[in-house]
C-alpha cells in the first residue's frame, strides 16, 4: 500500500546515489577571496545623530566577517543599510558579481536586494510563528519562484513542479541545519535556539551571495552557542557562503571569524584579522574595556 505512494525512481546506478548535496547554497559565483561587498564612506544620520560616520571596509567572498562594537555603535544600522531597510545619506554599498559586474545597493529596494542575493536574520526573531518550519523556509525560496497568480491558483503543472524543485533545496538546508525532527512543527512552538536556527535556514534558502546575521547567538546558553557556531562554520565551509556577522561574544568571534571590523560611535576604528584587532590598543580601549590591560 505504502509503496504505491513513493515516487518510483528509474533504476539507475551511478552518481545520483551519492549523498552529496545537489544544490549549491552559495549564490555568488566569485572566487574565494574576491571582493564581494564594498562599503565605502557610508554616512547615516537620524536627525542630528550620526549613526554611521564615514564607514568603509570590504567583505571578501568566502569569509566570515564579524562586526563588533559596543551597544549603539551602529552595527545593526550598518546591516540595515546593506539590506536596504535604511538609506544612508552618503556613501556607496556595492555588491560584486562575477564578470566584473557590480550593483549599487543604496539605491535599490529591499525586495530587489534580497533577490540579488543578500539574505539576513534579525536580532529579534522575525519568523511567521504560526507557520511550520518548512513553510517558513519555503518562503525563503519565494523570491526565486516566478509562477504568476493564475498558475499558482491552478497549482497543478508548472507551479507544482517548481515547488517540488524548490522543496529539494529547502530539504538540503533542513538536513544541513539538522532540523529534520521539527520540519512540520509550527515555529512558535519551538525552543528559542531552534527558532534562531530556522531563521538562519530561511536566509540560507535564499541561496545568498552574502549572509547577514544579526546577533545569531544572543540570549543562548553555552551549549546552544556552540551549536550555532558550528552551524555557521558548516554553512561557511560546506556551502562557502560569505557571512557578515554581528556578535558580542568575543570568544566566538576570535574562534570563527576570518576578519573583524570594529565600530565605535558610528566610526570604523579597526578592520583586520581577529588577532590583529584583538591586540589593537584603540579597540581595547573602546570595546574590551580598561581591565584588559592588566
Amino acid at each position: 500500500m505504502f509503496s504505491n505512494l513513493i515516487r518510483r525512481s528509474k533504476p539507475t546506478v551511478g552518481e545520483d546515489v551519492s549523498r552529496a548535496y545537489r544544490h549549491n547554497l552559495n549564490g555568488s559565483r566569485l572566487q574565494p577571496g574576491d571582493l564581494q561587498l564594498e562599503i565605502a564612506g557610508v554616512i547615516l544620520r537620524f536627525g542630528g545623530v550620526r549613526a554611521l560616520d564615514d564607514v568603509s571596509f570590504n567583505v571578501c567572498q568566502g569569509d566570515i566577517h564579524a562586526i563588533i562594537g559596543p551597544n549603539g555603535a551602529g552595527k545593526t544600522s550598518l546591516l540595515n543599510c546593506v539590506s536596504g531597510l535604511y538609506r544612508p545619506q552618503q556613501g556607496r554599498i556595492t555588491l560584486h558579481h562575477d564578470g566584473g559586474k557590480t550593483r549599487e545597493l543604496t539605491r535599490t529596494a529591499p525586495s530587489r536586494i534580497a533577490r540579488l542575493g543578500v539574505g539576513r536574520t534579525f536580532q529579534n526573531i522575525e519568523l511567521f510563528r504560526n507557520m511550520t518550519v518548512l513553510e517558513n523556509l519555503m518562503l525563503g525560496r519565494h523570491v526565486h519562484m516566478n509562477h504568476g497568480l493564475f498558475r499558482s491558483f491552478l497549482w497543478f503543472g508548472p507551479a507544482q513542479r517548481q515547488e517540488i524543485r524548490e522543496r529539494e533545496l529547502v530539504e538540503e538546508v533542513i538536513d544541513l541545519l539538522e532540523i529534520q525532527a521539527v520540519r512540520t512543527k509550527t515555529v512558535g512552538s519551538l525552543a528559542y535556539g531552534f527558532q534562531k536556527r530556522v531563521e538562519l535556514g530561511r536566509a540560507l534558502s535564499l541561496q545568498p551571495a552574502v549572509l547577514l546575521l544579526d546577533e545569531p547567538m544572543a540570549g543562548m546558553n553555552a551549549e546552544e552557542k556552540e551549536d550555532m557556531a558550528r552551524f555557521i562554520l558548516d554553512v561557511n565551509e560546506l556551502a562557502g557562503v560569505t557571512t557578515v556577522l554581528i556578535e558580542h561574544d568575543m570568544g566566538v568571534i576570535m574562534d570563527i571569524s576570518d576578519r573583524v571590523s570594529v565600530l565605535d560611535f558610528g566610526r570604523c576604528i579597526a578592520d583586520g584579522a581577529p588577532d590583529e584587532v584583538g591586540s589593537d590598543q584603540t579597540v581595547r580601549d573602546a570595546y574590551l574595556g580598561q581591565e584588559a590591560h592588566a
Partner: protein
Amino acid sequence: MRKAAAELIPVDEDTTFPKLLTELARRYGDSRIATQEKRFGIWQPLTWNQVHARARDFAHGLASLGVQAGEVVAVLGDNRPEWLITEVAAQSLGAATVGIYPTSVGEEVVHVLTDGKVRLVVCEDQEQVDKIVDLKAQLPAVETVIYYDPRGLESYDLPYLSEFTAVEAKGREWGEQHPDWLDEQIGRGRGSDIACICTTSGTTGRPKLAMLSHKNLLDMGQSFMSVDPIRPGDRYLSFLPLAWIGEQMLTMACCLQAGLTISFAEEAITQRSDLRELGPHVMFSPPRIWEDMLSAVMVRVGEAGWLKRRAFAWGHGVGDRYAEAKLKGKKPGLGLRAKHWVADWVALRPVRDQLGLTRIQRCYTGGAPLGPDVFRFFHSIGVNLKQIYGQTEICGIAVMHTDDDIKFATVGKPCPGTELKIADNGEILLRSSSVFQGYYANEGATAETVDAEGWLHTGDAGYLDDDGHLVVIDRAKDVMSTPDGTRFSPAFIENKLKFSPYVEEAVVFWQEGAPEITAMIIMEPSTTGAWAEHQRLNYTTYTDLAGKEEVRELIAEEVARANEDLPESVRVRRFVLLHKQLDPDDDEITRTRKVRRRVINERYAAIIDALVSGGDSVTVKSTVTYQDGSKVTREVPLRIVSMEGFVPKEGGRGLAFGVR
C-alpha cells in the same frame, strides 16, 4: 491489503547472503523495493535490482582494492543501505564484516579494528572518518577508509580516503575487465563461511569478536520465522545499531531472507516519528526502548486533561483485564469483549498510534531482562510484546515466547532446532546449528564458551518452570542469596525500580555479611524535568535537579512503591541518587545500554561503601569525559536517603499517571 505469503527462497548448506541477494534480484527485479531510506523528507527507495547492482559494483571495487577472502572489513556508522551493500559485497568475496557502534570512540574503535586485523574501514560521514584519522597512528594496519556521506570531507587530502560511489565506479570498470570473476567468487561461497562478526556486549570485560557463519544466521532466521512468519509485505524499520546482533538477526537473517522492504530512519532524532510514519509489522528492541515508550506514555497521560486521563485509566484497566484473560488461555466474556472494543477505540488504539505500533503483529524485547510490569503494560494496550533470549554467540535468538504462550516472568521455550539444558551449577546451556564459529583469533575464550559436545555455556543462571518455560535469573556471578538463604537476582529488584517513569537506571548492591540491600538510582531527566516544571521547581543542569530535596523525596516514594512488591528480605533500605547519567563514553554502560557492574563497583566504590556502612552522605569525585577526549574533575556531595520510617505523602507526589 497484505500480500499473500510468497514462497521463501529455499536455503541449503551452501546458501550465502550474496547468493540470496542474486536470487531476490532475479525474482523481484525492479518490481519490488529492497530498501527505503528517509532522506530529505521522502522515503527514497532502492529496488532489488539496484541494491544487487550496487553490491556487485562495490564488491568489484573492494576486489580492486585488494580485499581477500577470509579478511575482515569494518563498518562504522548509522544504519544506511550502504551498510547492507557493504556487508553483502564483502561476503561476495568471502570476506566478513564487523560493525562498530557509531557512538564508539577511541580505545573501543582501536580495539575492534586491531583485534579484527582490519585493513579496510567503511565509514558513514565526516564524524566517523575523523575518528579513524585521529587514531590512524594506532592503526597501522588500516590501509583504506571509504566514506559514503561526502559532506564536509571535500577538503580532506589523505591518500587512504575514498568515496563510496567512487569505489563503486572503479568497481564497475574493474568488473568489465573481469566479467565472470565475481560470479565465480560468489559460487565458491559456502554456508560455513564467516558472514559477519559481532562484538559481544562486554558487560564483563573487553568486547570479544564472535564469528557467525552464513549458515548460523540463516538457520536462526529459518527457525525464528517458523514460529513467527515474516511476510514480504511486512514493514520493518532498521534503527538499532547494525553492529549489534539483535539488528543483524532481524535485518539480515530474517528480513533479507524473507525479501521484505527494509526501511532506514532519517536521523537518530527522528526515529520515533519515522517509526510512527512507517507503522512496522515487526519490531525488536532492547528493554530500554520499551521502557522509554512507557515513560513517554506516562508523561503524556499525566499532562493530559482530566477527561483524557480518566478515559485512559478506564481503557487501560479494561485492556489489562482483557489481556490477562487471554494470556491465561481463557476466552474473555462477552461483556469484557464489548467493553474492550470500546476501550480499544477510545483509549488504547490512540496510544498505539502515538507510539507507531498500530500495525504491529509481534514485537520482541531481548538483550536484557524487561520488567514484568512493563511487559504487562504493553499487552494491556494491545501490543503483542514477546521475550527473546539468546546471546551473540547463538545469533541472538534461542528461546522465545510463542503467540499463545506468553508468561511475563519467563523468556519462553527453545526455538525449533534448539536444545536447552540446565547444568548442575544452574547455568543455562544451549545447542543448535546457530552456535557461533568461535571468537576471532581467540581460541582460548572459544574453548571456555563452547564445550566439546557443542553446548554453549551462556554464563546465565536459570531454571525451567512447570510449563517448560525458561526463567533466567541473572548472570550466574551476579545471583545473590539473602541471609535467610533466598536466591534472588539484582536485576529483578532493579527492574521493579526501573518501572517508575522517574528512574532511568538502577543498580542494587548487596555485600556478603551485610544484611541490607542498597541501591544507586539514576534519574530519568525528561520525566523528572517535566515533574519539576509542574512543581514550579527551578533547576539548571541534571546534577542540579538530581540534588534537589524534592526530587529525592519523589524518588523515595517510587522506591517505597517498588518495595511494596518485594519480599521483606530483599527490600531496598537505602539509596543514593546519582548526580549524572550512566554513559557509554565513560564505560559505565555498554553501547546497548547494559550496566557494567565491574566498572560501577570500581568507580563508585566510595558510594557503595557509604551505602553499605549506613552513612548519610558521601562526596564523590566526578570525572567527565567529553566527546573530544578531554576530562574534567569536580567534587559533588551526595545525600544517602534511608527508607527506614519513610512515609509516602498522601496520594503521592508524582504526576497522576493512573496506570499503576
